């Protein structure tokens, strides 16, 4: 009897180890499987080779170290003119770099566009004076330099598309809506995802600002003041003075009948920036008859991570918008 028990124990132990290992391996596989790109994503990327184009990296558009840009030019340089697509990186205005958007820039370049990723001074301990407004001014200064560089490389630029993600989308909208008149070439389209476009505390439930208490209004005034690079006080909320103060960084407040065609994508559960603000933007674009599409990822947050179908639609529409408003000739 005791001999039998002794014989069985090692077998049970072996299976217990197998169960535990299986659990751990399958758990890790489950986690990793969430990182795999959907099958459609391969249609929106390209293997970058000399036959596709050439990238010139870390070119300067100013004295500061952050003021760098990368420019990608297609291998076919025989066309009379080219559209330039500027794609601005995300990172909450405090982090990020153009280098992480290389796949997007390469893919757009493979379609026949000159593309550029532009860095801007990030708000950090070394640059406490930096604001969304100062960053938008840097982009405004960079665009003519990028176009000039493209011309030097032998690519005549005749149109511009502004695009970006999150913070980059905010800056892209500001250029396309606010600064388009100063652009050396016509801005034809604005494309982006999850970029903040207005700063009304009642919209910013993601930070609890919608509670509208003395405390949350103080917090909202502090944050929005830093973003605008201006002194904002709680008593300004809901007044024309607030709109006036925030207009410099509120793409919404620049929308009119001349606003360029716009493609937007937002997550309904965004915890990083205001989804409600995007509804205002959609309403304003509709009111002024601006051609636009507003895609909502109904189960996602800032990363648009739970709605592959909607993200796919966004990518499809990106191609459609470029074909329609900035066709490659």
């Amino acid at each position, binding site marked *: 009897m005791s001999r039998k028990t002794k014989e069985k124990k090692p077998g049970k132990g072996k299976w217990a180890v197998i169960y535990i290992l299986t659990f751990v391996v399958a758990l890790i596989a489950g986690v990793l499987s969430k990182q795999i790109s959907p099958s459609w994503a391969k249609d929106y990327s390209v293997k970058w080779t000399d036959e596709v184009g050439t990238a010139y990296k870390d070119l300067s558009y100013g004295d500061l170290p952050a003021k760098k840009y990368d420019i990608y030019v297609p291998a076919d340089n025989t066309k009379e003119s080219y559209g330039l697509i500027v794609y601005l990186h995300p990172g909450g205005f405090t982090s990020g770099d153009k280098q992480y958007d290389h796949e997007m820039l390469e893919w757009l370049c493979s379609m026949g566009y000159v593309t550029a990723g532009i860095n801007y001074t990030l708000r950090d301990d070394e640059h406490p004076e930096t604001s969304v407004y100062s960053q938008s001014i840097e982009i405004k200064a960079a665009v003519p330099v990028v176009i000039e560089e493209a011309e030097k490389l032998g690519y005549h630029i005749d149109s511009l598309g502004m695009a970006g993600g999150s913070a980059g989308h905010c800056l892209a909208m500001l250029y396309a809506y606010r600064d388009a008149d100063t652009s050396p070439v016509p801005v034809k389209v604005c494309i982006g995802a999850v970029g903040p476009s207005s700063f009304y505390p009642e919209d910013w439930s993601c930070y609890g600002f919608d509670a509208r208490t003395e405390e949350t209004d103080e917090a909202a005034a502090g944050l929005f003041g830093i973003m605008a690079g201006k002194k904002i006080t709680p008593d300004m909320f809901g007044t024309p003075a607030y709109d006036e103060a925030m207009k410099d960084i509120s793409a919404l407040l620049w929308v009119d009948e001349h606003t360029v065609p716009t493609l937007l994508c937002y997550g309904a559960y965004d*915890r990083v920036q205001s989804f409600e603000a995007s509804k205002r933007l959609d309403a304003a674009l509709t009111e002024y008859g601006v051609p636009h599409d507003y895609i909502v990822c109904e*189960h996602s947050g800032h990363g648009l991570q739970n709605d592959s179908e909607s993200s796919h639609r966004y990518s499809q529409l990106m191609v459609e918008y470029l074909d329609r408003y900035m066709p490659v000739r």
Partner: protein
Amino acid sequence: MSVTAKRLLIVLIIAVVAFVLGRLGMRFFMNLMLGGTMFGGDFL
């Protein structure tokens, strides 16, 4: 069903449950950081 077959079945069930838990866990973490729902949209 032999004991070995039963044990292999348990291994399979553990693998499926752990895989699903892994995906759910990752989704939970991403939702915590970025926002989002636990169910709906993509698989898990």
